[in-house]
């Protein structure tokens, strides 16, 4: 699997020149980066940097004002969200968006929904295809996803009764049930304790190595980002201020200024604008 990653291949996701604004507020300015197949790519940045806006643009919730998103070599900039999900973009949400009132198993099964084929008559009679398809789906999910994420003991529990960390895990399970080629995780370990964070980190590594799924995540936990990622993209005020290996990003003065602050927002903004003009000129 490492051999794959070192070969120069077309990136699975190519994001180019994304501009997104809400009224007068520019959420994203000229954002561009690649997500290589088989990589774990992390998007980091201070609060309000535009990370979730970027995620929503990639999964089709927002239409960018300009720029393009290419997935598996196809332009998906104007593709509606459900179609992107079927093409293999699975995601979780920052504020858990599980189907409350349904059980863990039902939630996960819904992830596969877009791939099912049952028709009205099959369902009315609950014969043949509907039954076979549902049984196969259930077996597949129980054997692969539920065991894999170690949520066997709660599979029949209603999701709303679960602790936060487990809900996050169920959301990841549901995203995996979509059989994605890119798994997008929005803050997978936010609000988790050490132990839960380590479990989640292990799952993310296993998803990549055992399933061959590419991971794109937004995360605040620097320890985890630096340990897991192959490629880190740093956003600040809606702009990419640095990207590269965890090592190079960590040593980037611009990044530490964005995180630690320069003491003066106006000064920082002026510096960013200057940097942007330099990049554009280059």
């Amino acid at each position, binding site marked *: 699997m490492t051999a794959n990653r070192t070969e120069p291949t077309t990136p699975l996701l190519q994001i180019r020149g994304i501009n997104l604004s809400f009224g007068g507020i520019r959420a994203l300015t000229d954002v561009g980066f690649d997500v290589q197949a088989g990589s774990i790519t992390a998007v980091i940045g201070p609060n309000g940097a535009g990370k979730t806006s970027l995620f929503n643009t990639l999964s089709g919730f927002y239409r960018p004002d300009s720029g393009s998103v290419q997935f598996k070599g196809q332009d998906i900039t104007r593709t509606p*969200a459900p179609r992107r999900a079927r093409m293999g973009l699975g*995601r979780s949400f920052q504020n858990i968006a599980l189907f409350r009132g349904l059980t863990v198993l039902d939630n996960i099964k819904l992830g596969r929904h877009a791939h099912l084929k049952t028709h009205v008559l099959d*369902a009315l009679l609950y014969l043949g295809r509907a039954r076979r398809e549902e049984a196969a789906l259930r077996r597949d999910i129980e054997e692969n996803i539920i065991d894999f994420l170690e949520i066997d003991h709660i599979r029949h529990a209603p999701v709303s009764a679960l602790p936060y960390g487990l809900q996050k895990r169920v959301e990841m399970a549901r995203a995996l049930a979509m059989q994605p080629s890119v798994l997008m995780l929005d803050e997978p370990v936010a609000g988790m304790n050490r132990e839960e964070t380590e479990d989640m980190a292990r799952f993310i590594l296993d998803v990549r190595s055992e399933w061959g799924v590419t991971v794109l995540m937004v995360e605040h936990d620097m320890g985890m980002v630096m340990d897991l990622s192959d490629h880190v993209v740093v956003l600040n005020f809606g702009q990419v201020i640095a990207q590269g290996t965890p090592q190079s990003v960590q040593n980037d003065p611009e990044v530490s200024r964005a995180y630690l602050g320069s003491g003066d927002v106006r000064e920082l903004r002026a510096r960013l604008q200057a940097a942007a003009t330099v990049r554009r000129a280059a």
Partner: protein
Amino acid sequence: MMAMDWGYLFEVSLTGIASGGLYALAALAFVLVFKATRVVNLAIGEFLMAGAFLFMTFAAMWSMPLWVAIPAAVLACGLLGAVIERSMIRPLIGEPEFSAFMVTIGLSSILVGLAELIWDPEQHRLPDFMPTQPIMVGEAFLSPKVFWGAMTAVVFIAAALLLFRFWRGGVALRATASDQGAAYAMGINVPRVFSLAWVGSAMLAAVSGIIVGSIGGVSSTSMGVFGISVLVVVIVGGLDSVLGALVAGLLIGLIEALASTYLGGEYKLVATFLVLVVILLVRPYGLFGTREIERL
């Protein structure tokens, strides 16, 4: 103290529960739309009216055979639902829920007006299609129309529940009801779910309108009155609860039958609304509704 005639009470209760089945079917049509789209459809009674009038047109005026006229009326009403969703409800996605609510008030006036233009404001009888053999349950007599109407309602409710549970579209609908954003990201086509809900609801309403119309006739206003009772049923049951619609349907049917028999016909609606007031005081979200549902 007046001696109680238990046999008579049983007969009245039976009729009440059977008519309650019709409330339950119409309430299901309402809940379908509310669950999926969060739209309070005040025009539910007018959808019943449309179904009944379409059936009358196909069967009596164009003399189609019944087995064609009934499905044709149901399908035509489904089409009406699709057109209304696309033209009046879909443009309001993202607007406050209250806007759609107001639109359905307008919609009910439009439908009544159209019905009076196309047909007329008079009371019409629908062609008879149900068996006329009286139904006896033990000693109790049950009007054959009410009995067969209730049976039909049971069949359609069961079919709707099966579709809800096992059909992809039904599952998509439940998911959309629970979290639109998440459903959208799971690959569920939310706008299509919206139109599916309206079509399904209009078709259920048509079935229920045809039955109600063949029991008591149909006019441009009679179904509106039935629709008010249906609204009481769904509020009592909990706006977003299928189980609530079924239980409250039977309950309201029973209470109306008892009140109009023992207190007099003029107390029928009084009793219904009394139940509504009590339920709203004790459980504002209805018997089985989700707690965070907004009060109306």
